[in-house]
C-alpha cells in the first residue's frame, strides 16, 4: 500500500510496472483510491452476562487472537530489505539508471577509482552514494570532481542497506540514463548479504591484499559480477602472482568478469570504461 496517500494500485512507468509508492518517488501522475481495512474486534469469552477477556494461556486478549498455535511464517529474515531493494530496482530501471554497488575491503582504492572514472566519463550524467561509518571525506573527494554525491554514515553499521540507498536515491533523483555508483562500506563480509537494488556488485581488490583473498571471503566474490584487480602498478614491488588472483576468483565464481587496472596510472582504465558503457547500453534496452 502507498505510504504517502494510502492507496494500493499499480501504475506503469515507461511500460514497466511499479507500485503506487514508487510512482510518488518518481513524481509520476497516478490515481488516488484509498484502501482501508478495519481490524477485527476482540472476541470475548462469554459466560452468562459476563464478558471475560484474556482467560487463555497468553493471559491477555488481542484482536483476532487464538490461545496457542503454530504459525507458518516461511519468510526470509532479510525480506524487508529485499522488498525495499526490489522497489529501488524498479525505480532505477524505470529511469534507465545503471546502479553499481562497489564493494571491497578498506583501502583497495574504491574512491580513487571512482574519481578517475568520473573524470574519464566526462559529460556522462552520474551520481554517487558514499557509505562509510564516519566522516564525509569520500563524498567531499567525489564532489571535488564536480559530481553529485550523498554521504551516508552508518555509525556502528557494517554495511549499507536498501532503505538507506532508497532515501539517498529519492534525494539525488538520478537523471534518466545515468550512472549511479554506490560505494559501500569497506568490508568484504556483510555487504554481500544486503541487496541494495543494484544491477551488479563490482568487487575491487588491490594487488597488495594477497592472492588468497577470494578464498578467504568467497561470499563477496560469488555475489560480484565483475572483479577489478586494482593498483597493478604496484605489482612488481610486492611479489604478486596476478594469474593466481584470477584463478582464485574463478574458483569461487566461475562466471565472474575480471579486469586488471591501475587507477593511479590509468593503465587498463579503457576496458573498465567499455564495461560500464556496455552495461548502461544494456540497461537502456
Amino acid at each position, binding site marked *: 500500500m502507498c505510504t504517502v496517500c494510502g492507496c494500493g494500485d499499480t501504475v506503469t512507468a515507461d511500460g514497466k510496472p511499479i507500485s503506487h509508492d514508487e510512482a510518488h518517488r518518481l513524481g509520476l501522475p497516478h490515481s488516488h483510491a484509498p484502501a482501508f481495512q478495519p481490524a*477485527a474486534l476482540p472476541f470475548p469469552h462469554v459466560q452468562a452476562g459476563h464478558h471475560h477477556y484474556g482467560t487463555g494461556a497468553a493471559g491477555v486478549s488481542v484482536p483476532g487472537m487464538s490461545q496457542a498455535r503454530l504459525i507458518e511464517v516461511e519468510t526470509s*529474515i532479510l525480506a524487508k530489505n529485499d522488498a525495499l531493494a526490489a522497489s529501488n530496482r524498479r525505480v532505477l530501471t524505470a529511469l534507465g539508471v545503471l546502479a553499481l554497488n562497489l564493494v571491497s575491503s578498506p583501502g583497495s582504492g574504491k574512491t580513487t577509482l571512482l574519481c578517475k572514472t568520473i573524470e574519464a566519463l566526462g559529460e556522462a550524467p552520474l551520481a554517487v552514494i558514499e557509505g562509510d561509518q564516519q566522516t564525509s571525506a569520500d563524498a567531499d573527494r567525489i564532489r571535488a570532481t564536480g559530481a553529485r554525491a550523498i554521504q551516508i554514515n552508518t555509525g556502528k553499521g557494517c*554495511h549499507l542497506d536498501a532503505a538507506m540507498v532508497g532515501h539517498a536515491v529519492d534525494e539525488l533523483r538520478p537523471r534518466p540514463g545515468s550512472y549511479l555508483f554506490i560505494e559501500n562500506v569497506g568490508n568484504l563480509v556483510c555487504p554481500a*548479504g544486503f541487496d541494495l537494488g543494484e544491477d551488479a556488485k563490482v568487487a575491487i581488490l588491490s594487488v597488495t591484499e594477497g592472492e588468497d583473498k577470494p578464498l578467504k571471503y568467497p561470499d563477496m566474490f560469488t555475489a560480484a559480477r565483475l572483479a577489478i584487480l586494482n593498483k597493478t602498478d604496484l605489482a612488481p614491488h610486492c611479489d604478486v602472482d596476478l594469474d593466481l588472483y584470477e584463478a582464485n576468483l574463478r574458483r569461487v565464481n566461475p562466471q565472474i568478469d575480471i579486469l586488471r587496472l591501475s587507477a593511479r596510472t590509468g593503465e587498463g582504465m579503457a576496458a573498465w570504461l567499455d564495461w560500464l558503457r556496455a552495461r548502461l547500453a544494456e540497461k537502456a534496452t
Partner: protein
Amino acid sequence: MHEMSLAEGIRSIVEDQARAHGFARVTLLRLEIGRFAGVEKPALEFAFDVVMRGSPAEGARLEMIDLPGQALCYDCAKTVEIAHRLDPCPICGGGKLIPQGGDEMRIKDMEVV
C-alpha cells in the same frame, strides 16, 4: 556476519506477524539457516536474546535448522551437496563450484500464545 541486523529483521517480522495474526507472545521460533548463509549461530543466539527484549518474542526459545549447501560443479555439470564452501566436487574432484542453495536465512514457523 551481521547477526544484530538479522535479529532486528526477525523482530520486525515477529511484530508484523503479531499484528496480522493477533498473538501476544512467541514461545518458540524456528529458523532455517543454509550452510553457506554465513551465519554465526552463537552470535545470532546472543543477538536474539538482546534484540527480542520488549517484543512478543522476549524469552522465546530459538531453534536453528541446518539446510544443506548445494553447488553446481563447472567441471562435471552436476549439482552436488558440499559441507564447506571451498570443498571440491565429491563426484569429479573439480574445484570450480558455484552455490545453488544453502544461503537461506528464514523464519520457518513460530509457536505462539
